[in-house]
């Protein structure tokens, strides 16, 4: 039973985006209202509250001794409740990074027009266990000069602008 061109030919009908947008075929448009308020829980609640204070906090697992960031109430490897809170530094090293020419909805940024591409990175935070990283953005650096192991430091929003969010850190920039 070879799957042949003939077998699959009429199984799906090809359309272009224009066929749909211009109404050549009928369609129904719908924008659902999907809004959420996600409870932080004790761990993230403290994490965000400390970010508002300009500090990064982690939590320790007393079984595997990892210092976990973002902090969590249970260690996902040992499956036990975590122990004490530990402050970590706002510096780190770049574990891996990206130079993105598109935004969250895959729209192109106007790179030719001078817009800087996004440079998100996984940053291993100093004070946490080696390899423990968080996702954040890099800035004040030439995207093409970022390298694995580059030392970076957080650039914070001024205290009056912080609200208790991951964006209270604007981005990380290289330390000279």
């Amino acid at each position: 039973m070879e799957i042949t061109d003939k077998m699959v030919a009429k199984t799906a009908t090809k359309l272009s985006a224009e066929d749909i947008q211009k109404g050549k075929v009928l369609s129904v448009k719908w924008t659902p209202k999907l809004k959420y308020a996600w409870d932080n829980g004790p761990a993230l609640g403290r994490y965000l509250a400390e970010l508002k204070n300009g500090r990064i906090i982690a939590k320790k697992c007393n079984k595997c001794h990892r210092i976990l960031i973002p902090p969590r109430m249970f260690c996902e490897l040992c499956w036990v409740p975590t122990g004490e809170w530990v402050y970590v530094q706002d510096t780190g090293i770049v574990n891996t990074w990206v130079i993105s020419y598109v935004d969250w909805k895959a729209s192109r940024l106007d790179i030719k027009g001078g817009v800087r591409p996004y440079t998100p990175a996984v940053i291993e935070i100093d004070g946490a266990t080696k390899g423990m990283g968080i996702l954040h953005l890099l800035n004040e650096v030439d995207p093409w000069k970022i390298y694995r192991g580059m030392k970076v430091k957080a650039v914070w929003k001024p205290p009056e602008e912080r609200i208790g969010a991951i964006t209270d850190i604007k981005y990380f920039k290289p330390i000279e």
Partner: protein
Amino acid sequence: MALIERFQKVTDVTYWEGQIPMSYIYTVGRAGEKFFREMIDGKILGAKCNSCNLIYVPPRIYCERCFERLEGHYLEVGTKGKVHTFTQCYETYEGTRKENPSIVAVIRIDGTEGGFVHWLGEVEFKDVYIGMPVEAVFKDKKDREGSILDIKYFRPIK
């Protein structure tokens, strides 16, 4: 692990707000294309399965019971039916109160296994009963777009 946090006032809960910012365009599909284009002409289409001897409304390209292909077996089923069940809605889907409660019914199109959820109009709630014969009332032809809303509502057959 017992409950760690317990709040007496909901305003004490810390939370993060966000949304899922997507919208959708659903193509109506092969069967839908035929069905909704006929709607523009004020007709309701069904699909007949000859093996199971029943008619589906709205039409579909397959019989869900025996999996036979139904394309090529579409037919007009008329615009009359009976109220299968009904209710009166006092709230919108977002949970706000409606000023004019609407009557929603499942209407079984005569001679078929299928039908629609739609509104009932030109009738008082107290006069609606299960089994009541109704017919579709379409919008003016110029206002029809090929949508289930091309039918304004179903009304009792006088």
